[in-house]
């Protein structure tokens, strides 16, 4: 009803022309002139993929000045033809969620709280721990003398929710370091 009322050739034009009727348009002029922000000048559009289930719906990300304005279904896609489910539609909401954590948090052993930590410092600390675990838990051979070249003290868990290239870097680095406990959601 609303759409028809505001449509210039619809009910509104009939009402407007009705003899003796003098009413104001129910929707203000400025509102009527509003357009979706995605059509604003300077808005860029990039092609993406929904990060939730494995259907692989194609999405369009609208952004300007480094800020995402909206994420919508891609009408060109033979999979989703522009549609998205509630989760896919919330991809934008996930990116801009006020509850998102965007800085490094550090919890000391036996501490009761999170602390802030500089990103590069965190990276150095993590690399040092990984190296120590490897050096202290290296297994050269098993009992029958067959080579092992491995370390069981560190696990890498996850992969199905990140990119293929990220999976590739994980398996390459961890297996090169001799880490055998590499696993993801495929079995879960």
């Amino acid at each position: 009803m609303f759409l028809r009322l505001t449509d210039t050739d619809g009910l509104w034009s009939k009402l407007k022309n009705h003899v003796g009727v003098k009413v104001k348009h129910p929707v203000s002029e400025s509102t009527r002139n509003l357009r979706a922000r995605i059509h604003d000048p300077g808005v860029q559009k990039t092609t993406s993929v929904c990060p939730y289930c494995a259907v692989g719906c194609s999405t369009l990300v609208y952004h300007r000045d480094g800020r995402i304005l909206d994420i919508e279904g891609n009408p060109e896609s033979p999979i989703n033809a522009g549609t998205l489910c509630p989760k896919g539609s919330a991809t934008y909401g996930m990116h801009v969620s006020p509850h998102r954590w965007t800085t490094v948090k550090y919890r000391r052993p036996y501490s009761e709280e999170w602390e802030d930590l500089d990103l590069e410092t965190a990276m150095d600390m993590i690399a040092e721990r990984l190296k120590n675990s490897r050096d202290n838990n290296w297994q050269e051979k098993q009992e029958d003398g067959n080579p092992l070249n491995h370390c069981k003290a560190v696990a890498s868990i996850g992969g199905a929710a990140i990119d293929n290239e990220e999976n590739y870097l994980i398996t390459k680095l961890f297996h090169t370091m001799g880490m055998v406990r590499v696993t993801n959601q495929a079995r879960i």
Partner: protein
Amino acid sequence: MSGLGITYGRGGATSSLMDLQNSDCILIEGSNMAEAHPVGFRHPMIAKRKGAKLIHVDPRFTRTSALCDIYAPIRPGTDIAFLGGLVNYVIQNEAYFKEYVVNYTNAPTLLSEDYEDMDDTGIFVGWDEQKRTYDFNKWRYEGMPISPAVGGSQGAITGEAYSNRVGQYDGAGEFPTDPTLQHPRSVFQVLKRHFSRYTPEMVEKVCGTPKESFLEVAKTICENSNPDRTTSICYSVGWTQHSKGAQLIRTSAILQLLLGNMGRPGGGIMALRGHATIQGSTDIATLYNILPGYVAIPDANKTHNTWKEYLETETAHTGWWSNFPKYATSIMKAWYGDAATPENDFLFDKFVRINGDHSYYPTIMAMKDKEEGQGVEGAFVFGQNFAVGGPHARLARDGLRNLDYLVVLDAFDIETSGVWKLDGVDPKTVGVEVFFMPAALVAEKDGTFTQTQRMVQWHDKSVDPPDDARSDAWFVYHLGRRIKELYKDSTDPRDELIQAMTWDYGHEGDRQEPIIDNVLREINGYTVADKKPINSFVQLKEDGTTACGAWIYCGIYKDGENQAKNREFGEAPHANWGWAWPLNRRILYNRASADPSGKPWSERKKLVWWNEEEEKWNGIDVPDFEPAKNPDYRADPSAVGQAAISGNSPFIVNADGKGWLFAPGGLKDGPLPVHYEPLESPVQNLMYKQQYDPGVKKYDRPDNPYNKPMDPRYPYSITTYRLTEHHTTGAMSRWIPWLGELQPESFAEISTELAAEKGIENLDDITVITSRGKLHTRALVTDRIPVYDFDGQKLHTIGLPYHFGPNGLVTGGFVNDLMPVSLEANVSIHEAKAFTCNMEKGHL
């Protein structure tokens, strides 16, 4: 997916969502597609509009059921009985596609006299009660050499992904067949006898499916499976998460072979997977037992001590895996560059070996137990909230708290990183050091996902991630750079591999983001001499002149173009939208869409065909077959490699090129599927003396008790499920206000009958109890959960969405705390879709 792997050769969905539009009938079982894959469900709905019949078989009446033409209820965990009933119906009514079955499956092949039909014990021939394993030699084809016992890894467990290597046997050769299918030892007759007890009456008794509903399903499927019509099957974790999941999927794979639906438009089996790149993370595996492209990781308990031994052990005589050395060598060249040479065996002597099961379940136990030499002290978590999602999640949380350090890459304060303050433990007693590394989300990074039909799509980075948030690629790349720096001066031989590792992807911008395009180029592969991308895995060499990170992704950078960026709608099968492995083939085994002479079975269902004049295969799809192999080509019995695959053999990865109705090896719990009750079942197995799958691996430990079969304390069955508005453990949904409003809290769905029995009203507080734990939630009382009459006993099912935890905007108890850790024999999957519990009113 070893149910598909063992039968067809590859463990991936065989068709595509879009191809479902070409189906004349779609059976959806083990999936609530309308709610769990809502947009994927568009395609069955389009098929329905075009006249297709849709069937839903499920323990719950869901929105999928409401939109299908036929709904057949089924008691949780009895799908093999149901599908076995369909197999029996097809054989008894001679509804199978005879020419297809005779030519494209191993139906005519004779088994050795060692094989005996299973009797009512429910145990196949070859069982060793002490070792609790089978001797595969009893399941051989006649004339097949006896193979030594597989490996030495006692209790080693293969993963889901290993399925791509299962359709193999030792040695080439031609085995006797009977094309009339009458020989009593032919696979066909063995199959017929094996499934003869799966009658419609038995289905009704065991599954609780009314006989009329079952027969209607059977009739509909058969009417829509012939040269002119095709039926497709869609499944999801409702089939995989069982103590016999691989065999369950295999039953459907057998059915599709008998009906001649595999490799044809509108046919096949659509595995509906649940994460954006769960397929990709198996293809380019972050798994302990395989390298990218399903290349086996060296195993200290196999004959893998030297490069030569490794190649000899892993190279198949016939079928696609005869190419193994090319793929393994190309990985070593991609990873270690110039340092890997034929003279030093491509550094194989320095390379990692496994020596047992290092998968998720033993790993969480090793976190908790910290046994000498096995214990885990540190863990890196890349987008997996297993403090909520792991089976027996409490055990996982206890394990996490016992680590020395934990690094979690995520966007929200998930339960996995916050584990030190959960479960009422005093943080002052928890020693784990935790690094929460804020992760970039999809629109903030370049990269690819491989979705459910093996199709790879690139996503562009739109904006920088906020503040310190970085991509997981950034993290691993910079961690790797630091590690290389820390080891650069080492003279210890064990560190040579780290020093040799190629890691020069380059980075860009202030934040030094690694250039993902260069990673994808390495995955695709290149010729070492000029670094030019290669176009196909047939170009890969074993002499070290090619490098390739994941051979099955060869061609994703065809002609120097990133094919995963393709976005052309085009016509079915939409070959220019994204890119599918292998070599952009959209429907696997599509040689089977043509008859043995190479002509389409029908005009309506044509896909690829032999072009006499050009002497090559043409088609709407890329042929999944050697392009110039004549349909009349017949392999010499002494042939090896692809030459051993005849022109009428569409299943090119399997050793004999045939679809395997009977598996002469490869599956640990039997050559044919058998109905067993779930590990935890309220009732006895009516079909065999064996109660549950004899191959299931249990962890008998005090913190992982099992509910014994028919334990009166746990009379109900639980089946867990997903809601449309939440995603797996909620890590990507419970912190988003929109989704929280749509689906604000946890609940347990119970039938009106059970509610009346217990005096429970809708929205009442209830407690669900197992021997592992308790769940406090509220009742959603509906008439959507059928109650089964089992030999006079009423059986109730409780449906539990499992997305919840105490953190975030939407909170709830840990459903997976209720579940035991138990492992299916072949793929180590747990049983989330059928286990027992009690339920009481109130929060106890």
